[in-house]
């Protein structure tokens, strides 16, 4: 029998933190060097595992926020009060530390630059993270695919990637709308959740070649997906990713 190489199963590897960046008071970007990293698609995530001195382990999923450019991988982690993993990642982890990770994973909630049709991105809170990877991949690929981002946040200080987003929005192919649910900046009269009228005004209308990506806490994703389908979007063209109250997609 001809001997063929068995495909190696995806398992845990140890990366090294090369940089940390505070994005908001509670969110931080962690840049990792992972020696066995095969590259990733925009929208994929990784599982991160922490092991306590007594052997207790906890793992969570975090979305990748960077586009693949040949080296390194960036995660953005929003700290969850009383979380098991995120407080360590946001407050304790430092440059040079090892971190156990498994990935990249996920092949559904991804955007490929060669994919046909415009893209609508809708993020709630740190649900913007995988959408940011898509925007960055769009920029890196110099894609002319029209893309719109609706980004729902509590208040201006909660906006992750504010500077990068404004730079990306300078492209004529990228349209950016912030939706403030608790407190808006001066000059922005609307405070409230995404609703049908807002989708009508700011999001792409239903179209056969449109792909919509929705990411956020489960109740946010359910509400937005329902609005989209009620508004005439084909459910098969609405891709969703949910994360929970206890700590990021995991």
């Amino acid at each position, binding site marked *: 029998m001809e001997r063929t190489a068995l495909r190696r199963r995806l398992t845990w590897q140890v990366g090294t933190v090369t940089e940390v960046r505070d994005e908001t008071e509670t969110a931080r970007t962690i840049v990792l060097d992972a020696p066995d990293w095969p590259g990733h698609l925009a929208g994929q*995530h990784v599982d991160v595992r922490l092991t306590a001195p007594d052997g207790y382990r906890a793992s969570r999923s975090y979305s990748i926020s960077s586009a693949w450019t040949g080296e390194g991988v960036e995660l953005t982690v929003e700290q969850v009060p009383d979380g098991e993993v995120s407080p360590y990642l946001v407050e304790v982890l430092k440059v040079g530390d090892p971190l156990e990770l498994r990935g990249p994973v996920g092949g559904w909630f991804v955007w490929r630059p060669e994919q046909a049709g415009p893209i609508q991105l809708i993020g709630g809170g740190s649900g913007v993270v995988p959408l940011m990877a898509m925007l960055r991949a769009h920029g890196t690929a110099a894609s002319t695919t029209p893309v719109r981002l609706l980004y729902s946040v509590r208040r201006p200080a909660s906006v992750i990637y504010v500077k990068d987003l404004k730079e990306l929005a300078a492209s004529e192919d990228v349209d950016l709308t912030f939706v403030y649910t608790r407190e808006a900046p001066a000059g922005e009269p609307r405070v409230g959740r995404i609703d049908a009228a807002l989708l009508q005004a700011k999001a792409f209308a239903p179209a056969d070649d449109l792909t919509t990506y929705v990411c956020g806490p489960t109740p946010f994703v359910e509400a937005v997906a329902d609005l989209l389908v009620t508004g005439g979007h084909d459910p098969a063209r609405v891709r969703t990713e949910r994360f929970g109250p206890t700590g990021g997609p995991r």
Partner: protein
Amino acid sequence: MSADVPTYLDGNAAAGALREVFAVDLTAAIGKCTGCGHSAVFAEAHVYVDAPGMVARCPGCDNVLLRVVSTPNDTYLDLRGLTYLRISNTP
């Protein structure tokens, strides 16, 4: 926490655990439920990660589609609720 806040995530959250045992990504695979016959991409399944292991349920009828439990030595994979999984041959 109020009882009507959903506690499930979705099939994307199970991608890492499943990628340990499958050579391909399963989140984009189509699964058919043995309970109600609903078929959908696995990414849309409701996944509960707070159970011992992970439990994926049908978004249509709540039937248990799949469970995956890892112990230090073995991984248990229970596919009781799936009539089939349809996996694209195009990577």
